[in-house]
């Protein structure tokens, strides 16, 4: 784990990279990293996230700046600009049921080959997917997701990179923290080692590569 300046953190991310971005309607999204991606105009991105929030907020900023080529999300209904880009074929969108998205991200980080879920059986989500019958019930085989980078936001980060999370800002962050080759974390505060007791750490510092400097 290393501290890193905001600009240098985004410098690590090449054009066309795949990013997992934590947050739910921008709550728990690393907002400074969003701003810096826009400032450096890092385009052609694949973004895996729950949603694209609203224009001008969270991942919505990346959409506004047309930095995203491909989206894997559960919901875009709150962002008309995302819908517009999708219907205009400027943006490729894969819609994934939210619980399945969580499990696919987790499987990517936990080294599972996939999970079986009944969610989506008999719906359009089933198209192109393998299914298995177990004890007379049919399940979809849902495959793991991984990304080049995970951009996450925590509440407190200690000097070893251990993170905890705040209320509904937790959401996908701890799952994504394991599912990317490089993990970059923002935190509301940076605290000495030991301030977050062992039982309260949600993301162990050993999986965090960079922590963005506070400003």
């Amino acid at each position, binding site marked *: 784990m290393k501290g890193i300046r905001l600009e240098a953190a985004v410098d690590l991310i090449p054009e066309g990279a795949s990013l997992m971005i934590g947050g739910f309607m921008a709550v728990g999204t690393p907002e400074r990293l969003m701003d810096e991606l826009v400032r450096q105009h890092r385009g052609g991105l694949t973004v895996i996230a729950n949603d694209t929030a609203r224009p001008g907020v969270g991942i919505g900023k990346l959409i506004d700046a047309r930095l995203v080529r491909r989206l894997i*999300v559960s919901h875009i209904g709150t962002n008309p600009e995302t819908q517009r880009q999708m219907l205009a074929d400027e943006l490729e969108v894969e819609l994934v049921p939210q619980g399945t998205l*969580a499990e696919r991200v987790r499987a990517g980080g936990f080294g599972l080959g996939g999970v079986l879920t009944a969610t989506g059986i008999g719906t359009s989500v089933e198209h192109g997917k393998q299914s298995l019958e177990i004890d007379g019930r049919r399940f979809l085989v849902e495959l793991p997701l991984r990304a080049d980078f995970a951009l996450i936001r925590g509440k407190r980060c200690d000097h070893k990179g251990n993170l905890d999370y705040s209320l509904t*800002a937790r959401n996908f962050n701890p799952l994504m923290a394991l599912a990317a080759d490089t993990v970059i974390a923002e935190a509301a505060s940076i605290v000495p080692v030991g301030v977050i007791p062992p039982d309260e750490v949600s993301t162990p510092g050993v999986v965090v590569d960079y922590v963005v400097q506070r400003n």
Partner: protein
Amino acid sequence: MDQRILIATRVVQELQPGNLVNLGIGLPTLVANHLPPGLEVYFQSENGIIGMGPVPEEGMEEPDLTDAGGGYVSALPGATSIDSAMSFGLIRGGHLDVTVLGGLQVDEAGHLANWMVPGKMVPGMGGAMDLVCGARRVIVAMTHTARGTPKIVPECTLPLTSVRRVDLVVTELAVIEPTEQGLVLKEIAPNVTVDEVLANTSARLLVPDQVPTMQLPG
């Protein structure tokens, strides 16, 4: 009574003490505002909290404490934060007692369509598919028609949310229970006739000899 409040008030009667309940965005959220005094249920919001409370007073909003629509909420004593995997583990694993969801269409098989209108509105399914698939009890709370067009139809023309048969449909006109045999008219709203319900429904309804009227609090 406002029609949306009528629906919410009727749905509340389906909740049991101690239930873990998830309310969809829109009309279903009204349910939280009409709990009778003394009925303790736990509201889960799938973005990551059990024990969600009402909108906080002005100035006390916490940006990290919102509902699934991104609106500020509070948390009741004993509330717990959960990540998205746990949130849907509770939903998919049968720990969620009731989900109340909006609907675009419900059909004679009890199938719900509520997540997209091809070519027009593609919001995504969010948590709806997991909720309908996994909750112990699925209640659809919706207006009976959309600009005069029936939403309770012989077979959904919109993409399905799940092939699981929902448990109850509550509208401003009626309470309808999807069963193995078809859609059963269980109750009618005050000042509504069975014929009015039938006239606003394109699906076949099974109508018992006696159809009671919803018993709503004054």
